[in-house]
């Protein structure tokens, strides 16, 4: 096929090019720039090479220790909330009504937590959990549990996790509900004919058909929880001690608290890289699963 050569067409791409340059590439390059320099203030910078990166990945240094500890906490946090939210979301979706006015009622109720801004969620739980005036904290303490998320590490973690589960399980549930709705009735009828138990229906039909929405759900929830900042910052401020200081909180402390621009820049680049890699892995898995799916559908 003959293609018309028209270099003027590049002008059409120019606006996008400029917007992306100013919104993403240039800021990122300043970060790259900071990450290889050190400063003693007065806007005087010194070349530091990969020094910050070395320090960041060295557990014995202050920076590396803090980064790796917060990374560990963050991964643990993501793992815990995924382990709770995914199965819980599936259970919620399975127990939702399939038709009638109750569907609308359930959907609206489920969507409510998703509509609340992050810092408001944090504030709600910050107050809810207070032992003096919060409903949750006060009730627990009057029942004899020594609950205080400000001073007890376990309580702080429990609060942050329960808060995240409260905030985001709905997302998984709604995704799964949509996935369940798309299973044709014939599958359930065939399973009835085949004498399948409820559990067999779940493992042989529902779970395999939910495969793709679950992958999306896990990706979204992993990314969100891995980048979580506002809610734990509002509730615990990263404490007690550093026990709920996740990577983003650590990053803000270094960048804005200590104004160590070089360290913060190196940290955010590594942080960004981890997010990108995880996204890429998920994307690859998903498109492969999708390709499988399309091949079968194509044959059908």
């Amino acid at each position, binding site marked *: 096929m003959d293609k018309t050569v028209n270099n003027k067409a590049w002008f059409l791409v120019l606006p996008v090019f400029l917007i992306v340059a100013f919104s993403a590439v240039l800021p990122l390059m300043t970060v790259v720039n900071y990450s290889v320099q050190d400063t003693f203030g007065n806007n005087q910078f010194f070349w530091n090479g990969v020094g910050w990166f070395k320090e960041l990945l060295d557990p014995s240094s202050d920076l590396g220790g803090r980064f790796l500890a917060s990374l560990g906490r963050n991964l643990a946090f993501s793992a815990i909330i995924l382990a709770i939210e995914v199965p819980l979301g599936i259970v919620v979706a399975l127990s939702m009504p399939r038709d009638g006015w109750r569907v609308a009622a359930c959907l609206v109720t489920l969507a409510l937590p998703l509509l609340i801004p992050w810092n408001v969620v944090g504030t709600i739980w910050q107050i809810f959990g207070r032992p003096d005036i919060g409903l949750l904290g006060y009730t627990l303490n009057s029942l004899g549990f020594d609950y205080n998320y400000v001073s007890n590490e376990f309580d702080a973690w429990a609060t942050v996790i329960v808060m995240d589960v409260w905030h985001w399980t709905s997302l998984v549930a709604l995704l799964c509900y949509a996935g369940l709705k798309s299973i044709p009735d014939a599958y359930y009828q065939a399973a009835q004919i085949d*004498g399948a138990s409820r559990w067999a229906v779940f493992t042989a039909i529902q779970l395999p058909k939910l495969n793709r929405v679950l992958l999306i759900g896990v990706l979204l929830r992993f990314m969100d929880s891995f980048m979580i900042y506002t809610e734990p910052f509002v509730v615990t401020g990263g404490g007690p001690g550093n026990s709920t200081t996740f990577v983003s909180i650590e990053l803000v402390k270094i960048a804005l608290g200590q104004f160590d621009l070089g360290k913060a820049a190196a940290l955010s680049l590594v942080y960004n890289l981890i997010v990108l890699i995880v996204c890429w892995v998920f994307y690859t898995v998903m498109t492969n699963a999708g390709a499988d799916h399309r091949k079968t559908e194509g*044959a059908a």
Partner: protein
Amino acid sequence: MARIDLVDLAQSYSGNDADPSSFALKPISMTWRQGGAYALLGPSGCGKTTLLNLISGIITPTRGQILFDGKDITPLPTQQRNIAQVFQFPVIYDTMTVGENLAFPLKNRGMPKPQIDARVKEIGELLDLTPWLNRKATRLTPDAKQKISLGRGLVRSDVAAVLFDEPLTVIDPALKWELRSKLKALHHQLDLTMIYVTHDQTEALTFADTVVVMHDGRVVQSGTPQELFDKPAHTFVGYFIGSPGMNIVPAEISGRQARICGHAIGLDRSYDTLPVGVKIEVGIRPEFVQVAAPAPTLLTAQVERIDDLGRIRFARVRVGDVKFAARVPDGFSPEGGEVGLVFDPARVHVYADSRLIEGVL
């Protein structure tokens, strides 16, 4: 394996109090004998799938009972009825292998593993699935998928009946033939009662030894393909079975004579006691009307077109407002657009209010 009796079975999707003429399935009573190959034939929306789903228990009837070997199973859920059903679109458990798919109904019923394996192997062989048994049941062609669905329907040897709900809709025509003959062969080998729902008369007539024709929620006739062809009990059967369908023409009957379009034709039987005040028609299959050169003793008709079906030619002709299809004998070519119609008196049937009236010989 069982005899299935339907007793006053009816289904309404808008409740028991709804107007009976709106019922998806009007009350019927009938018996399906053990080991029979039945076809439920009718146009879309005539209630065939409803009837099938009632038997399998996917829906509960509004009225009436279903008996398996005399035992009332109406209130039992599908799982507890001994029934297998194959649906229009293949249902595959795609996390399992083909063999596991076939074993699924047996496994769910707690059959011991050696027996399951033996049975799966047997059915796999019957359906030519043996090389696939250990493969994942994904990325298969539609006919392979539907074979697996069929296999799951056939794998249980103890079922009261296997129900097929238009199972070959998604299959290519060439493979359709093959699968249909396979089903027919399987019916002989496995000695199962099979009920096959379809709207395709060829499918019904080739598969079944008894064809049940449904129309508007009612069973209008059940019989062998030959009976349906020779002696349709209802004008709908005459029209629906056969290609082209039966000629149905308003007529006046007196004794052994029918007047159609102002022309008298002789009948083989005598109809002296016809109901009065109802619509009287005669029906005759196009195969038994011949066109001939116009003659004073014949009904004269205008030829509209000739359909050449290869082995046989049919003329579409018109007498006034009434249209006929009639056979064109070999070597005859109508000239001038006018022909005479020769009726075979033995093949002319009389219908009062669309129902067949038996004449007296």
